[in-house]
């Protein structure tokens, strides 16, 4: 398996030879989760997707555990000002999560329920379409990846994403990390970041942090595998997605 360090080494070397573009794209776009990482117990999937069972999230703590697990592991800076905050996974209420489709006369309980929001890893992502440097790109397993080392910070993807899933580093992020995790890279000023479906964990055969921390409230799996658990859950429950009318095909489903 290619570790991150090896990867950076090869990338640096190949870019010296002027092969930067070709290498990075091949290695990241085609290989992980597919060829290179197939040996060990990497999770294999053709289209990663997530179902959030919103009925099971009852207390503040349920959400906090999930969000903390992600943000801590990924060195997400804690910025209080909502204008400039960085967030990979967060919550909002029914009406603002499901704009356009929110039902006015739905039960009060649902109206006041909170919903976990994150990048939808859209099957047809506008963010990828608009990025001028392929800093955000699709892996064949469906993950919309973000290469913070290539991003030029043009913010086009933020205008392109209809889900507000992307955060720009308006402030030096390292100054706002409370507990630093040396296992995961930190970011710099002026780049865009977002949830990556924990690609680093998937490639090692582990589930994303949020899924793990949710203790069964979030189901993760391969949408293209008809025998997967996620397909079973989807066939047995009524689910909704955010802004399906835009044709982006979000891969995050919500059981109401």
């Amino acid at each position, binding site marked *: 398996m290619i570790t991150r360090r090896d990867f950076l080494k090869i990338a640096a070397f190949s870019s010296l030879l002027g092969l*930067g*573009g070709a290498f990075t*794209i091949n290695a990241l776009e085609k290989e992980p989760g597919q060829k290179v990482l197939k040996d060990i117990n990497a999770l294999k999937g053709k289209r990663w997707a997530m179902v959030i069972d919103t009925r099971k999230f009852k207390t503040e703590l349920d959400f906090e555990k999930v969000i903390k697990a992600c943000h801590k592991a990924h060195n997400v800076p804690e910025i209080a*000002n*909502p*204008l*400039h*905050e960085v967030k990979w996974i967060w919550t*909002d209420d029914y*009406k*603002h*999560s499901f*704009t*356009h489709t929110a039902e006015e006369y739905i039960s009060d309980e649902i109206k006041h329920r909170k919903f976990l929001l994150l990048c939808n890893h859209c099957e047809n992502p*506008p963010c990828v*379409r*608009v*990025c*001028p*440097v*392929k*800093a955000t790109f699709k892996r064949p397993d469906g993950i919309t990846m973000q290469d913070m080392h*290539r*991003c*030029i*910070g*043009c*913010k*086009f993807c*933020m*205008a*392109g*994403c*209809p*889900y*507000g899933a992307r*955060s*720009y*580093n*308006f*402030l*030096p992020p390292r100054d706002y990390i409370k507990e630093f995790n040396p296992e995961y890279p930190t970011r*710099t*000023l*002026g*780049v*865009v970041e977002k949830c990556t479906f924990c690609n680093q964990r998937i490639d090692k055969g582990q589930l994303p942090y949020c899924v793990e921390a949710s203790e069964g409230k979030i189901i993760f799996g391969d949408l293209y595998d008809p025998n997967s658990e996620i397909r079973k859950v989807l066939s047995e429950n009524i689910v909704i997605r955010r*802004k399906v009318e*835009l*044709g*982006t095909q979000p891969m995050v489903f919500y059981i109401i």
Partner: protein
Amino acid sequence: MLDLALKGKPRYWIWISFLITMILIGFICWLREHHIGAAFTTGLSRDVSWGFHVGQLTFFVGVAASAVLVVLPYYFHNYKAFGRITVIGEFLAVGCVLIAMLSVFVIMGQPSRVWNVILHPTPHSIIFWDMFVLMTYLFLNLLCGWTILHAEKKDAPPPKWIKPFIYWAILWAPSIHTVTAFLYAGLPGKPHWMTALQAAHFLATAFAAGPSLLIIISMIIRKVSKFDPGQQAINKLAEIATYALIIHLFFIGLEFFTAFYSQIPDHMKSLIYLYWGLEGHDRLVPWMAISTLLAFTGLLIFMFPPLRKWNVTKLIGAICIFFSIWMDKGFAFVVSGFIPNSFDRVTEAWIALNEFLVAAGVWSVGALVITVLYKIAITVKEKAVFDKYGQKQVVD
């Protein structure tokens, strides 16, 4: 010919020094943004990630494209009155393309990685095409303007080989603004921007603002030099601006109809925000009110022939139209696209002082290039007392 730019009256050097000072201030402000972060130095946020600079890109690409309005009638329709100012239009385009390209550059959070755009060419991104068409247009205008002027200096007709480049530049001009419109017009979830009318609307605003600026510049040139761009040309520019302005206002009306007759909330909300304020957020309402007032003042002046022809009112009208469109396209249009945000809330944006000074630095780069090129052009043109179009120049 460059040496001509090195001789000038004191006021020329004062102007040049002023521009260089503004460039330095802008540069320092730009460094400051990359030191302390865009949170303190721009009016942008997570919800409104593009603002003043992207607006400037949009506006100045338009002004650059409008050079075609003096070049095309002269070369395609043999409209002689524009003969003297084709070079003025071409050099204006050079400066404006520079402003546009620098405006994109200054939005980048990681400017040192800008080469990635070339190292990893990405044809499905409109920024890639924008860069490509702008670079080409810059080159074409510099080449055509310079070659024609060089010929003029030697009192010779322009060389034959330049013709294809001139035609190329003419055909290229609408493309640069079309591509700019595509930055906006293809984004799902941004209904205010996503209209098939966008490119056409951009061209209409460009063809109103561009000639207005050329009128203002022609009047200044006339005041500070012995070269006269010609009354007939100036009058024609005003006529063109009038038609374009009417089309622009008509297009605004079309947007209103589509939004309000369909009653689709997201299509209405951006317009409501701009003109009346949405959910108590009305920071741009006075801004748009002024822009609208200026547009109608300009229209009134330009629609009424005596006022359009009298140079004093003409100048006022041109200033009104130019600033009306600058306020709209150069800022309000960009911000209102983000309203409401992805969660159906309203986050407003404004222009931070630091951001404004960076933009002022960018304008100054454009103005400096235009000044130097104009200085050369005017010096060459001043020498011809009787120009080759048979009209006597103003000699004081």
